[in-house]
């Protein structure tokens, strides 16, 4: 996967758009900041979340971190491999470590997300 295909939120989630479906994970920067991921709680398939709503959790040794829905919509798939292998988020944040897929309600939600180069600048400034 090329980073250029992804869009990033200010909360360090990444989104890959395919039609009206988005795949969501956390950025390489975010997984490094978290350290070893030891538990992932994924949202139930079929639940709907508003953009910016906490929908999932990633736990490192020290802390629980909320993951926010980057767009509004319905959860249509989850990466159940993370249940037994949460470390995939550290090892492969952009591929095997994807977290869930959502069916987007409004493509306009994507406007607030950043392209990879802008996200990189955002990290430098942060």
């Amino acid at each position, binding site marked *: 996967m090329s980073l250029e295909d992804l869009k990033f939120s200010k909360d360090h989630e990444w989104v890959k758009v395919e039609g009206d479906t988005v795949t969501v994970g956390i950025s390489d920067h975010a997984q490094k900041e978290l*350290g*070893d991921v*030891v*538990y992932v*709680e994924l949202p139930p398939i079929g639940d709907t979340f508003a953009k910016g709503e906490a929908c999932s959790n990633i*736990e*490192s*040794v*020290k802390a*629980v971190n909320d993951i926010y829905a980057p767009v509004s919509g319905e959860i249509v798939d989850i990466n159940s491999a993370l249940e037994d292998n949460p470390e995939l988020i550290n090892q492969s944040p952009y591929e095997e470590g994807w977290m869930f897929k959502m069916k987007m309600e409004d493509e306009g939600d994507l406007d607030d997300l950043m392209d990879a180069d802008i996200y990189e600048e955002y990290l430098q400034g942060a």
Partner: protein
Amino acid sequence: MKKTKVNTAHHKLNGKMIEFFGWELPVQYSGISAEHIAVRTGGGIFDVSHMGEIFFRGKEALNAVQYLTSNNAAKLKPGRIQYSGLLTETGCFVDDLLVYMMNEEEYLLVVNAANLEKDFKWMQDKAGHFDVKIENLSDDYTQIAVQGPNAEKLLSEFTDTDLRAIKYYRFENGKVNGVAAIISRTGYTGEDGFEIYFVSEKDTASAMFLELAEKGKKYDIIPAGLGARDTLRLEAKMSLYGNDIDDSHTVLEADLGWILKFKKGDFIGKEALLKQKEAGIKRKLIGFELTGKGIARHGYPIYVDGREFGIVTSGTYAPFLKKPIGLTYLPIEKCETGSEFQVEIRGKKVSAEVVETPFYKRQ
């Protein structure tokens, strides 16, 4: 924020700094799991200068310590250390601490950073009538802990003191890297290791920490932060003041009855604890594992037979044992190994089971 004399070294080693009870200290350098596992397999170097050092000096130093603390300090000899409790009249903890016997008229009490001011005032208020000078020298002292199976090998490169001769819970006065130091075979990790106390300039303290880190590499000993210190002590079921012990749970409830020496004479808290011992305790601190999914953390509610009973006092994912563990108080009739209860994690009730402790015991 207060800075320890090792502060420069933490920045050089890229420590991730946080505030801890007013101190700027590293929560981690390379990562909590890596540091935790290093301490179990090679070793770790910790800056624990935030701990408080209070000296009791004078003819009645022993009497004052005996009255203020629950263990029997009269059993100590120079060079020996004991774990003890500074207790309220109700038999709960003002703090837990280490008592070092320097000589007949001098004792060193090492207390938690979070409680230092409170403890110091308490000691002055409650032991003012003894012929003893109580001095808080915490700001002068740097404390560095070298912990892990290879700790002795590394530290022996820095001192002429025969470390093998220092047994567990004993200390020697010696020199470390040329600096006069108390070399104590103690720790808060469940591993063998040392805690070194010394008074020096900032540059000397930082240089010593950096040199320990550099020479530690060949023994797989790495700098470790507060994050690993907390997960290590929890695996070893060592209590943390403010979490597992406090001023509302008694020593007996905290399952630390072994630090109560009722026959030694009067001490603060004795009467209440004798009564409770007679009547029997109604709740006790136990160790548990989650049998359901998730990680229990400090403050999560616990349910016994469907009723809310208390909170998880400490909880984490244990990096060496690779499972979620925790401590909580349970009703005394529910404390046997295998007994089940529930922890509420983000609105969901997750099953937990009482297990034998310590969770981890070194071979």
